[in-house]
């Protein structure tokens, strides 16, 4: 079903859409990629980032080198990305999102059956399958957009379970700066605010022989992400 659908959407159209989205994001935000340690690596990687805007994954994706973009798939909520034809085209066709069912929202979305995303699917298994196939993931471990004054919301446990399941995958924290100011929720006119995307060093494996506790891993990942914040954002 899914493959057949992808063949129907002409490849040229999705490529054109991807190029337009990248070009627009670049022109509007002048986004700058900053690699804190070394450059990008072409190995299966989970990029986990702070989430304050719908533009986040576009900016992160745009900041990757062009050859890594097609191999990097955002993890996104099925109910949101299947709710209209345009979103389906962008979410599934252009970005090849890995669609995850959010519990409690399944009933609201009538289009799930058509998409082939199944409510009974284990999200961790879905993500692990993508990594095992050699692709990378963009993940927002806060689970939802952060509209509070909190720097980063507490992480959901998915990141931990994924790290247990795929111990050899790189987990790279990514701080996305300013995108939420470009087009905040409810705004119509986007502002040409300059944005940057900072890629940190991959999380080190646990030093102990004992398997790491869930909370300890999540705290470590969250601190690594927060540490990437530019100085001028800290006092805000």
């Amino acid at each position: 079903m899914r493959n057949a659908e992808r063949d129907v959407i002409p490849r040229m159209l999705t490529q054109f859409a991807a190029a337009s989205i990248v070009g627009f994001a670049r022109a509007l935000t002048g986004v700058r990629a900053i690699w804190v340690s070394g450059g990008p690596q072409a190995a299966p990687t989970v990029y986990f980032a702070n989430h304050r805007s719908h533009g986040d994954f576009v900016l992160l994706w745009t900041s990757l080198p062009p050859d890594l973009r097609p191999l990097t798939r955002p993890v996104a909520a099925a109910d949101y990305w299947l709710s209209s034809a345009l979103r389906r085209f962008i979410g599934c066709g252009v970005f090849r999102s890995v669609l995850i069912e959010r519990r409690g929202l399944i009933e609201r979305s009538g289009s799930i059956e058509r998409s082939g995303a199944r409510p009974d699917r284990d999200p961790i298994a879905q993500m692990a399958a993508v990594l095992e196939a050699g692709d990378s993931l963009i993940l927002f471990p806060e689970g939802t957009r952060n509209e509070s004054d909190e720097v980063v919301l507490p992480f959901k446990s998915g990141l931990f379970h994924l790290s247990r399941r795929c111990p050899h995958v790189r987990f790279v924290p990514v701080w996305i700066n300013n995108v939420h100011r470009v087009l905040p929720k409810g705004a119509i006119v986007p502002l040409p605010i300059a944005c940057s995307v900072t890629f940190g060093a991959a999380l080190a494996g646990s030093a102990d022989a004992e398997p790491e506790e869930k909370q300890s891993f999540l705290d470590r990942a969250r601190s690594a992400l927060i540490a990437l914040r530019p100085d001028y954002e800290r006092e805000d």
Partner: protein
Amino acid sequence: MQPGPPQVSDTVLLFAGIGGILVLASTVAALLRWRLAHGQPHTVIDNLVSRINAWWVMVIAIGLAFIFGKTGVLVLFYLISFYALREFLSLAYTRRADHNAMAAAFFIALPAQYFLIWIEWYGLYSIFIPVYAFLILPILAALGGDTKRFLERTSKVQWGLMICVYCISHVPALLTLNIPGYEGRHLLLIAFLVLVVQGSDVLQYIWGKLMGKRKVAPELSPSKTWEGLIGGVLSATALGAALFWITPFNPWQAALIAFTICLLGFFGGLVMSAIKRDRGVKDWGHMIEGHGGMLDRLDSVIFAAPIFFHVTRYWWTP
């Protein structure tokens, strides 16, 4: 036998002179790199080369704008204002409720200011931002309903607009001045302002590197020294006096005006540096990788332009 119109011949002469100096500077820098650094990376020489290259970019951009006359200059400074405002607001703390005020700054106040200069409506472009935008921006922010750090947030948007749009727009506004006996030569007034103020920055840097010891404002800008300041401003004043032939001023008037705008430029650099330090950044932006942004290059011109405009307007227009 008849030479071209005075503006054309003087402009060509001026650009030929600047071009010659830049070729000389680039050659000297290349020689220094070859003899002193042996082609290896060298902090001071690399910095020198990047400064010379920035001058090439600036001179070529202004030269191209001059070819297209008033339209070219307005388009160039519109773009400069846009990038400056983007740099300024990108570093400022704002909240969701400021979105409409910022959108008004980018998409209404900025084009309106340049349009008013285009139609040469002095009575409105000189008060549009300090009066109308000043009052309307906080109204828009207040309608957002968020009081957290309200005064600070609105002040930053107003300040950004004043610095990046109002002040910068006074460079192209020089074209609207009606100076008797100076008809058709206004572009040279812009060249005078930019050359003297940017030249002063370079001369301060050179004097400071050669003999700088006592710091002027260690908290704000550790690279600025008294020796650099005095040597740079005096030599840039001499440069201004030497350029009197492209202005409506006589040599001592040109010197006095050059001295004034160099001092303003110096203090402009200090003020903008204080803001950067407060925000914990070294540069305003990253237009050219490693060489800062638009505001880093223009901080001195921003503070000099409105005063230069009004001094010239007060004493040289009827």
